[in-house]
């Protein structure tokens, strides 16, 4: 045998808790994070931490009470967010983050409910739930982190993979057209639609703040680098290289039709706040249109 086996040190709970106490609370954002969970599992160069950080900063500056806010997430790399935030969070089954959040919102209408999930969870397996929640105009904030593939399972092609992009399951290049997520959300009836990349962290914070102040179905798409699952087969380089591409290729165009907002593999990436409109939410319609009439008659 080349290596000598060493007996591992026995696990001591006291030492473990002491270590957590020493390493937690040394960053201002740590008060929103569960003790002992940082460092997170996301790869070096992944943009997911930026999105989580932007969400925390947006929530902090809007002074949303932790007791009055719930985060629901699905399965995938982004689904891990529910495990890191030190508040009411739910890690639901694959694709069912929005139905769970809908129920939560109807049971506690005064609560801010945020759905934090990935493109594979929200648009592949949970696509139907998303379009119907947008159609009903449920009062939810949906933050969709788009990394163009199924990152956690090893980089398979999904509904957002660019055409001709190589993944584990499309070694000769993807032949399917991808979704334009912002257009889909807009066409389904979302009242606020924005797209940013993880490079536009400050704009993302402003978008999160707007979402907390607004009623209705709000949708933010965030493009993030995925150096491990998507960058390697497509030779996009490290996370830093992909962030530089976002810096150089992205173009901010607010208030355009999301149909024109393209995001190519090597072409321009159109980002901005595309839609900001007012519409009565499902809860208002239901209380005024159904409950009032039912109690009167």
């Amino acid at each position, binding site marked *: 045998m080349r290596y000598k086996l060493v007996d591992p040190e026995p696990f001591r709970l006291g030492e473990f808790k002491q270590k957590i106490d020493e390493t937690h609370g*040394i960053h*201002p*954002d740590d008060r929103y994070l569960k003790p002992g969970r940082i460092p997170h599992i996301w790869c*070096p160069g992944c943009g*997911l*931490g*930026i999105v989580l*950080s932007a969400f925390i900063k947006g929530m902090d500056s809007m002074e949303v009470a932790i007791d009055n806010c719930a985060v629901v997430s699905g399965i995938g790399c982004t689904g891990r967010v529910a495990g890191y935030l030190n508040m009411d969070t739910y890690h639901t089954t694959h694709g069912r983050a929005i139905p769970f959040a809908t129920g939560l919102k109807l049971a506690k209408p005064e609560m801010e409910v945020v759905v934090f999930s990935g493109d594979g969870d929200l648009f592949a397996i949970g696509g139907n739930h998303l379009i119907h929640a947008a159609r009903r105009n449920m009062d939810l904030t949906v933050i969709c982190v788009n990394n163009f593939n199924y990152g956690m399972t090893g980089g398979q092609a999904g509904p957002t993979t660019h055409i001709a992009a190589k993944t584990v399951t499309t070694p000769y290049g993807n032949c399917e057209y991808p979704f334009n997520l912002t257009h889909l959300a807009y066409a389904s009836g979302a009242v606020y639609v924005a797209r940013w990349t993880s*490079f536009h962290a400050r704009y993302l*914070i402003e978008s999160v703040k707007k979402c907390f102040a607004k009623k209705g179905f709000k949708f933010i798409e965030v493009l993030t680098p995925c150096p491990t699952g998507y960058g390697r087969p497509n030779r996009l380089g490290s996370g830093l290289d992909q962030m530089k591409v976002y810096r150089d290729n992205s173009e901010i165009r607010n208030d355009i039709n999301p149909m024109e907002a393209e995001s190519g593999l090597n072409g321009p990436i159109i980002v901005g706040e595309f839609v900001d409109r007012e519409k009565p939410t499902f809860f208002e319609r239901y209380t005024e249109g159904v409950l009032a009439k039912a109690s009167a008659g």
Partner: protein
Amino acid sequence: MKFWRLPLDAEEQIIPVGRLFIIADRCKGCNFCIEFCPNKVLEASPDFNRKGYHPPVMKPNHECNNCGLCEVICPEFAIYSTVEEKRRFTEVDLVRYEEMSSGEGKGEQE
């Protein structure tokens, strides 16, 4: 861009001086903060942290202006800054600005 004299409103300009806190053992070496710092005050440390990455350190003779971009763009919650003091705009800042605007790369857009 070159300035030929100190701007007339230089007396009114206050520059915050930030103090950087770097939690080295959380860093995973993605280099986002080093690349996107508008003042270019960070560089990769020659030392390793506990995970084997090179965490960022302040360059000598550089000054942080507490813009907070590194805190926003760090995916690992490993860096933040606070305001240490505030000082007046001086001629040294003009020279630094000229050096920076002629240097390579750019920080955050706009």
